[in-house]
Every structure is written in C-alpha cells, then in structure tokens.
C-alpha cells in the first residue's frame, strides 16, 4: 500500500512533503496536489480545527482506501492539520500519483470533497479576538453529489 495518511498537530512543509511523495513514485507520469491554507486577507486572525482521536484518522484512512480502489493510482497522500493555525499556514495537503493524469485529477478532487464534507473535524475561527464555531455549508453536500 503506497498510501500516506497523517493527522498532524504541528505545522508542516507542503513543498517538502510533495517532494518526498513525488520521489516515492518515480513511475507515475503525473502528480496532482491540492494545498489548502488559511487565507491571509480575511478578517480571520486564527483558525482552530478540533478532531476526535478514535474517529478522525481512521476516517481519513478509510477515505484513502476508497480513493485508491476507485482510480488507478500509484499512491495517495492525505495530510491534515489539527490545532490552531495562523493565516498562510497550511491546513490540508492531498496528492495523487498515477500513470495517466486524468486519474490523479479525479482522485484528488474526490478526496478533497469528501475530506471537507465528511471528515471528523470541527472548526472555529477567531475574528476581533472572538472565537466562533463554523457550521456546515450546503455547498459541501452539493460537492459530494457530483460523485454519485
């Protein structure tokens, strides 16, 4: 199994992670990646993601297995932060390596839609010194409907 799924509680370096993942799959013709980061120009001063140990990482691993079985991939990488993050800090990195690029694009896109809508993370944002919990958006469920 060439998958790499991690729940991280400290800052990570997406460029280095992507370099390592790419080097681990030299027979893949293409690698598609998605990097999500805390936006810098919002009024948001900090973002916190909370996870629940017994469910969050197992759910991410299950997702990786589903993605891997659905497309012809050499490997998949799913890294997700938990804890407090500042603007411009990376939150999530998903990458898929495959022989044909169509598979990598679809796999990374699918993985992001499902990570966002279904993973066991609770998010709150700090604005003007005040923390506020974020509720789910209808768009997240609409994203999932694309794959049915």
């Amino acid at each position, binding site marked *: 199994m060439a998958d790499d799924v991690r729940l991280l509680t400290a800052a990570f370096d997406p460029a280095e992670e992507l370099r390592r993942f790419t080097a681990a799959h030299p027979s893949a013709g293409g690698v598609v990646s998605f990097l999500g980061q805390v936006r810098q120009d919002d009024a948001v001063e900090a973002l916190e993601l*909370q996870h629940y140990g*017994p*469910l969050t990482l197992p759910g991410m691993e299950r997702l990786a297995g589903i993605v891997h079985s659905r497309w012809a991939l050499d490997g998949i990488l799913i890294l997700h932060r938990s804890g407090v993050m500042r603007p411009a800090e990376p939150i999530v990195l998903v990458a898929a390596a495959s022989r044909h690029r169509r598979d990598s694009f679809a796999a990374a896109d699918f993985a992001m839609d499902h990570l*966002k809508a*279904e*993973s066991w993370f*609770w998010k709150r944002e700090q604005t003007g010194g005040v923390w506020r*919990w974020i509720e*789910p958006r209808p768009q997240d469920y609409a994203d999932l409907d694309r794959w049915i």
Partner: protein
Amino acid sequence: MARLVFLGRLTDLAGCAELEVAPGPLETVLAGLDPALALALLDERVRIALNGDLIGDRGVVLAAGDELAFLPPVSGG
C-alpha cells in the same frame, strides 16, 4: 466512572472537553447535567460514539471506563 467527551461547539456549551460521570443509563446521566447542555446533546444532528464506534441508539447504558463522545455536524468547507 465513565467519561463524556464534547466536540465542537458542545465543548463551549459544556464548559469543558470531557466530563467524568457515574456509570448508568444515558438518560440518567443526562438528567444530572445542566438542562441546556442536556438538550443540546439530545439534538438528533448530534451523533454519538461509544468507545470510538458510532452508535445509533441513545438507549445506551454506560459501564465504568466507557467513553461516550458527542459529535455535532462537522464544519466542512
């Protein structure tokens, strides 16, 4: 003792992330909590997990050492 775990906004409502409670039926445990918190925990959109496994039935009886987590809808986007 058993342990209740509160995620997301429930952490704020409970004023803590975890709470030690006496073992027993869930309804008895909830009856001992602040009514506003108990009401929020009964919201059907809040899922529950017993010792790390999601369960559908709220008629659970907590044994000593059990961990019951209350999981509000995840935040998405």
